[in-house]
């Protein structure tokens, strides 16, 4: 499984400046790539890439398909703080896991507070390199990775086969524009806040080649584009009774 296009970014930032795109009314599904949709996505990703730091709170839902076709959902609350170019803290708490990721520009730590285990490893010096390293060497994918990559736009639009503007929509009361995209593996939708800040408010990925086409959804309820983040927020200090464990090399850990 190489790293190709499947786009599952989890947070696809897209953004639609209020006056940037001409929105079409609910249109029939298009098989072409509308420049307006791509442009709106570009605005959102550029906006995020340009933020020196940000914090976001979100809720995620993932579907699992059982052998008889029944689908189950599982939810997590995720909190992410990013300071470019080299700091990240992300917490993921929910039905299935309870994790804290910390990157201080030197090392990456994963803490499992419930299990009382943690692992720390030296990591490359920038967010982008660290994310690549984590994925390739450790089989770790940090929450909100898609938001963090500066080239998120290129990553998300690789292999695009369709793109269109669905129209105005509301996400938890926030006025947004909804965009729909397709590539060979997945269909995805993104809701971008209208107004001065083209923030991603919702993101849905449909894995159309899997049985029952399970979906992943994230709704970002809170954005802070100018948070006060102290360095300490990115420093990992293990709990006294936590046990340090080693990472299993990615090859052994599994897939990718």
């Amino acid at each position: 499984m190489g790293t190709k296009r499947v786009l599952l970014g989890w947070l696809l930032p897209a953004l639609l400046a209020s006056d940037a795109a001409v929105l079409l009314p609910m249109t029939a599904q298009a098989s072409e790539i509308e420049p307006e949709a791509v442009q709106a996505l570009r605005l959102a990703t550029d906006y995020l890439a340009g933020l020196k730091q940000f914090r976001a709170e979100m809720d995620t839902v993932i579907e699992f398909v059982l052998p008889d076709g029944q689908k189950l959902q599982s939810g997590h609350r995720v909190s992410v703080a990013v300071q470019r170019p080299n700091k990240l803290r992300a917490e993921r708490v929910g039905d299935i896991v309870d994790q804290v990721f910390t990157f201080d520009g030197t090392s990456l730590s994963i803490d499992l507070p419930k299990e009382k285990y943690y692992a720390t490893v030296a990591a490359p010096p920038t967010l982008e390199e660290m994310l690549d390293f984590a994925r390739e060497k450790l089989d770790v994918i940090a929450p909100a990775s898609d938001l963090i990559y500066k080239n998120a736009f290129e990553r998300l639009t690789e292999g695009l086969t369709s793109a269109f503007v669905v129209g105005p929509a509301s996400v938890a009361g926030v006025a947004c524009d909804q965009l729909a995209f397709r590539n060979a593996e997945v269909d995805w939708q993104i809701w971008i806040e209208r107004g001065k800040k083209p923030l991603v408010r919702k993101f849905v990925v449909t894995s159309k080649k899997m049985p029952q086409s399970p979906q992943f959804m994230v709704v970002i309820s809170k954005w802070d584009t100018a948070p006060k983040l102290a360095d300490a927020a990115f420093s990992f200090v293990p709990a006294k009774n936590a046990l340090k464990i080693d990472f299993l090399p990615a090859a052994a850990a599994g897939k990718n």
Partner: protein
Amino acid sequence: MGTFFKPFALAAGVFAMISFAGVPGTMLGAGSVSEAEAFVVVAHPPRPMAVVGAVAVTTAVVASTTASASAAKQANANAAAQANQAAAQANQSAAQANQAAAEAKAAAAKAPPAVGTIVTTLPAGCSQTKLNNVDYLRCGSTYYKPTMAGDTAVFVVSQP
């Protein structure tokens, strides 16, 4: 993705996600999905929390050739975990998936886990112990070394 679906179609095997591998990230919650409820999941979105490029849907695992949830539930936690690991190593090859199923069966039959075997849940009655400055969990006569696999803790059968 192809490599994921191919075995999926071929193997009578099913991608069973015994520990919800793959949720927002990767193997989720191994330890948290206990022996009590081992879900057999045939599909889930590929690493949703992740980034583009991480195509792996593959923390999913092959549990058994019959793919029945009830069968999976019958297997004990170790069996499931072993199948999980075996499947991961099988790299989604159908043939190897079958092997994983066989291993799951063997484990279910209470065969002692081989050194190097990785499980996501421990049997009951384990205690923490330190040998040569290394922490282990001792369960009966078997030693497990807690290890981080992706963003999840797993336990590697070890020979201290």
